[in-house]
């Protein structure tokens, strides 16, 4: 049941927001006025677990939250970036070349760490709100999230391979650049939704929220979502990994039985 948890979180958020301005004068009296007051991010998800069932055909995850402040919002407006990253895995990118009139696989680049799923949602164009150095440090944009690129000496244009990886995965909905899709209300409440394709890799995903101001990250918050198969899907997957021989025999038995069954059914139909 997701609903009660969701409404509880909303209530909590509302309470936090209401409490913030009220608490302000009292705190000022006691504490030494700090430099820029810390802005804390509070985050909620429509689901913290994506269950892949037999009729799973993609999904959507709703990410929402608020900036909790002890002071009034700063004059300089802030923006929000939300990233959703699937488990990283090594991948090889191969390029075909024409040799003697035939297209063959020629150069190869291996990428040790590429997220299997990666979505970036922002409240404004990424280039305008995040500096290149901060992007490099926090690995936010899609090319920055792809790491450890190795290739042989004969490859001089590794960037083209990384671009190809991004292009192929963007086409499959596995990499998403979702600029200006985060709603950011009164510098406080933010929300966005990220579509999840049906070919969603399983594993533990991390959701990161960055509050950015002046091109640099002011505050971050991280949480996890578990994407996993359930029911029959999980049972079959586990069986294929853990009981390979049994699974193989089951597959062969089903095939033989179906073949024999069809032939018997057709024979009966014919004899009538």
């Amino acid at each position, binding site marked *: 049941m997701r609903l009660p948890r969701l409404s509880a979180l909303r209530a909590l958020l509302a309470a936090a927001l209401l409490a913030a301005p009220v608490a302000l004068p009292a705190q000022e009296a006691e504490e030494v006025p700090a430099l820029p007051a810390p802005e804390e991010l509070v985050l909620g998800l429509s689901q913290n677990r994506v269950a892949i069932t037999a009729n799973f055909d993609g999904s959507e995850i709703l990410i929402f939250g608020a900036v909790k402040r002890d002071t009034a919002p700063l004059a300089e407006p802030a923006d929000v970036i939300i990233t959703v990253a699937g488990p990283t895995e090594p991948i090889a990118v*191969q390029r075909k070349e024409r040799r003697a009139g035939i297209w063959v696989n020629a150069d190869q680049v291996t990428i040790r760490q590429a997220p299997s799923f990666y979505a970036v949602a922002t409240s404004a164009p990424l280039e305008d709100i995040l500096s290149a150095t901060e992007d490099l440090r926090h690995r936010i944009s899609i090319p920055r999230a792809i790491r450890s690129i190795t290739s042989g000496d004969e490859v001089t244009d590794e960037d083209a391979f990384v671009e190809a990886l991004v292009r192929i995965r963007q086409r499959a909905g596995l990499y998403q650049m979702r600029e200006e899709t985060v709603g950011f209300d009164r510098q406080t409440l933010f929300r966005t939704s990220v579509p999840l394709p049906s070919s969603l890799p399983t594993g533990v995903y991390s959701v990161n929220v960055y509050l950015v101001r002046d091109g640099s990250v002011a505050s971050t918050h991280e949480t996890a979502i578990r994407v996993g198969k359930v029911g029959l899907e999980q049972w079959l997957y586990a069986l294929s990994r853990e009981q390979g021989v049994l*699974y193989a025999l089951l597959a062969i038995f089903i*095939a033989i039985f179906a073949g024999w069954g069809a032939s018997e059914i057709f024979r009966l139909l014919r004899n009538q």
Partner: protein
Amino acid sequence: MQIYLPIAEVSVNMFLLLGLGGMVGVLSGMFGVGGGFLITPLLFFIGIPPTVAVATSANQIIASSVSGLFAHLKRRNVDLRMGMLLQGGGVVGAGLGMVLFNWLKQLGHVDLLVNLCYVVFLGAIGSLMFVESLSALRRARGGGGGPVKKRKQRGLVHTLPMKMRFRTSGLYISVIPPFLVGAAVGVLSAVMGVGGGFIMVPAMIYLLHMPTKVVIGTSLFQIILVAGVTTFLHAVTNHSVDIALALFLLIGGVVGAQIGTRIGAKMKAEQLRILLALLVLSVCFKLGLDLVLPPAEVYTLTEVQ
């Protein structure tokens, strides 16, 4: 209706899978080929990962071959003795082929070699069959439906020792040629990663001079073992057989095989051979084009273990 496949980890349309399975099943029942050379690329096309497509098509081939085999058994179109002899040769050949494949892999460019092998073999076999069956068909028509001139029954095949009677095929020949044919197809299957029905069928017709109708049933019989072993090995070593995918494909496949057998029974042997030749030639043409035409995407992604 979309269905999520647990091993392939993608979601595909159920009716698309039933249709694909059915189509390949019809061909299997008609011609005695497993259809792996057709279904594997089609599965790639709908987004199934290559390793899963290869392993699962082997699983579906078992089902459509068993279905077709039963139908052919009732018509007494299966030469079990010949089938077992071919299988014996096939096992030896597959072993040799594995060694050859690993040796080629060390030299590099094995995938190119496999593709070229495919194009050359499919092209050669397809054109030879097409020309032969076309002239056979003409001869039959020209002779006003009279009996076709009997093949010359004496040759190298008949001078070899260890003769055996193959009653269903109506042959009395040495066991050496069938064993060698089985072994040669075994080598090719291991190198090219296919069941080899489309090589086995012409080999039985033209090298062993078996009757076309018996060839189809016997080919199905020998494919079952090959596909069974392939499925088992893939499931145990690569965990790449998707039972859910196989189930939808094989429901279509077993029904298709029954229909294919009935279509085949109504056709003349020469017509069947012409159609098979055309099918083989069109697959060859498609593979050839893929090698020569610039691909839509020159980059490909491969998982690293």
